[in-house]
């Protein structure tokens, strides 16, 4: 249960467009810049994949805060990743309908196929080549077609083990 952000990636050079958009986000909160903490964290994760130590310190600096105040947020929300996930992120729904529809077996299948044995504190497992990551998520809002998954932003319903294998081929 460590609070550290893993800096497995080299220091990221921030593009001018990134900085400009961040400034734009901050301008939405004229009363208290601190309110821009969450939007900036989301934007950083969308752009760079995960919240590194660099991200925490950069955002804190931008908002005139101390890094610990950003780290408090990052560690509160499991959806902020503190280390990189796979290039293709397989998110398996585990809420009731999908669970009944075989979501656990489906996740197990992905894990076996990808040779993933270890998961982090939030249940995220990454394949050895870093290409795929598998994790459970909560309801994806398609309970009639369980089990459902998302691969990055693509949505798949009623996923059988055969289809799962095909998806792994497709995203290669």
């Amino acid at each position: 249960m460590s609070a550290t952000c893993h800096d497995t990636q080299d220091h990221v050079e921030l593009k001018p467009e990134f900085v400009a958009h961040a400034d734009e986000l901050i301008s939405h909160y004229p009363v208290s810049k601190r309110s821009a903490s969450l939007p900036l964290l989301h934007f950083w994760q969308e752009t760079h994949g995960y919240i590194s130590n660099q991200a925490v310190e950069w955002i804190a600096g931008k908002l005139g805060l101390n890094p610990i105040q950003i780290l408090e947020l990052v560690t509160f929300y499991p959806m902020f990743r503190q280390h990189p996930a796979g290039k293709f992120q397989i998110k398996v729904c585990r809420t009731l309908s999908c669970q009944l529809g075989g979501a656990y077996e489906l996740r197990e299948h992905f894990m076996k196929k990808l040779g993933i044995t270890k998961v982090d504190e939030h249940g995220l497992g990454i394949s050895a080549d870093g290409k795929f990551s598998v994790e459970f998520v909560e309801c994806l809002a398609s309970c009639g077609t369980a089990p459902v998954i998302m691969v990055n932003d693509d949505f798949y319903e009623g996923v059988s083990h055969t289809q799962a294998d095909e998806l792994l081929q497709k995203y290669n």
Partner: protein
Amino acid sequence: MSCKNPFNHDITPADAPLLNVQVDGQWVQLPRGLNVVEAAKRVGKFIPHYCYHPKLSISGNCRMCLIEMGTPKMGPDRKPIIGADGKPEIGWIPRPQIGCATMISEGMGIRTDSPMVQDCRKGVMEFLLINHPLDCPICDQAGECKLQEFSVEYGNEDSRFVEQKVHKPKQVDIGERIVLDDERCIMCSRCIRFSREMVNDDVLGFTQRGSHTTLAVHPGKRLDNNYSLNTVDICPVGALTSKDFRFKMRVWFLKETKSICTGCATGCNILIGSRENVVHRLTPRENELVNSEWMCDQGRLGFHYIHAEERLLQPTARVNSTTLPVAWDDAFAQIRDRIKSYKPEQIAIIGSARMTNEELFLLAELRAGLGGNAVLTDVVPRTGEADGILRSADLNPNTAGAKLFQISNDGKNLAAIKDGIESGRIKVLYALHEDPVGDAGLSEFALAKLDLLITQKLLKSHSTDIAHFSLPGASFAEKRGSMINGAGRLQRLNKAIATPGQTMDDFEILLKLRSTITGGNSLHTIEEVFKAVAASIPALSGLSLSKVGDLGVEVAPAAATVTT
């Protein structure tokens, strides 16, 4: 007020209007601006609390200070309904409220010990103890732990918890002087608020909020500021412990002696925690006019020299090249016999602004007996940087006193003393609590030219080795006396431990040396010396050591202006 607290919930302005408040059935008048915890305290009712601290912002997260409150019932005319007793009737709120974040108002009712309040406290205690390790036998906080105390006072007799406790990081090294045990932390956030509000060093925070909430420093940062150990004081449990004190002594064995810190001219009020003549720790003692409830780490940890191995324990005399132990009375007599043959111009005294007023007074008398102003005298000035919180730029605790008794010349005479010794004009040097070489900047070569070198110090050095007489004195924890801080406040030191070995309290050494050389004048005790001090200084007239009290007195501005 010399210490700027971010908040002072326990202090209201003198002109605050009084409000009528009912506390546990009794109507009392209390100044507006108090919260319920402080209001209850003023009428002798204690409301237990963990996160609330009178000098920090209110976070209201521990829920221990839950009370019942009510406001006056209003009639249709929007006027309070007056009951049979002539007092307003109170409409009680059916839910408990936190006392720390509730300000008193006109006609308010407070119940600090009703069945509902007692129930709430039991409940809060049960929750707090769910994940708290029961390692009290090896916990440094045991004996001064609020969780222990409130458990006895307000808790349950047994636990209903049968599940697995949450495990968190142990022995986390979060700073130069502090170790954190996260399992013991009850998440009151006092340390976070102290670091943020008092010292503006916001490195602490809660990560993993939820059932695994963890107090942490930001990776790569450390809780290393010069006030970090105050977080150990205000931590209600044993989560933050001092590396210097941990596992050294059970706190209930400590004898606490009220004194002052001699680390700089601020003169923070302290408690010396000692057991069997060993000082184990210094902790701040509340004095709103000096240090509030805080002290700096430098002052707090700057006492270990008392028990250093180099401590001189025996008066010695040098005969030719051998140094031999000598009886005190023999030393005084020998010094008298040797010093008599020198003219005042041949004698110099290096005193110290670390000496007490009583010692400085006696030193001034001794100087008068040796020839008065012709005897060159000075102290060693020490300057550092003021930090705007507690530390003074003057690192000597009694510069004001040294000036008052004309021992100090702001260090300007040090060069003349040096020249005098080097040119052979000065033959005798008496150095007290300053090392002639290390502190006063004389050369070993110059010292060797002296006919008579008398040192009165705590620690062995080259100077004490070559001194003709080495008189081992007492540390601040081993003596009584008074000092005047940078703001002109006269404060008392008290004796916590006995002087070790053959060492002697400095006022006694000076008293005996003076009596031997110039004859006595019936001063024997420290009280008598202080009385003589007070009689000779108009600013201190009428004072006695007992009148100075634990919190000190501001002496007339005349004395204060000397300090600047």
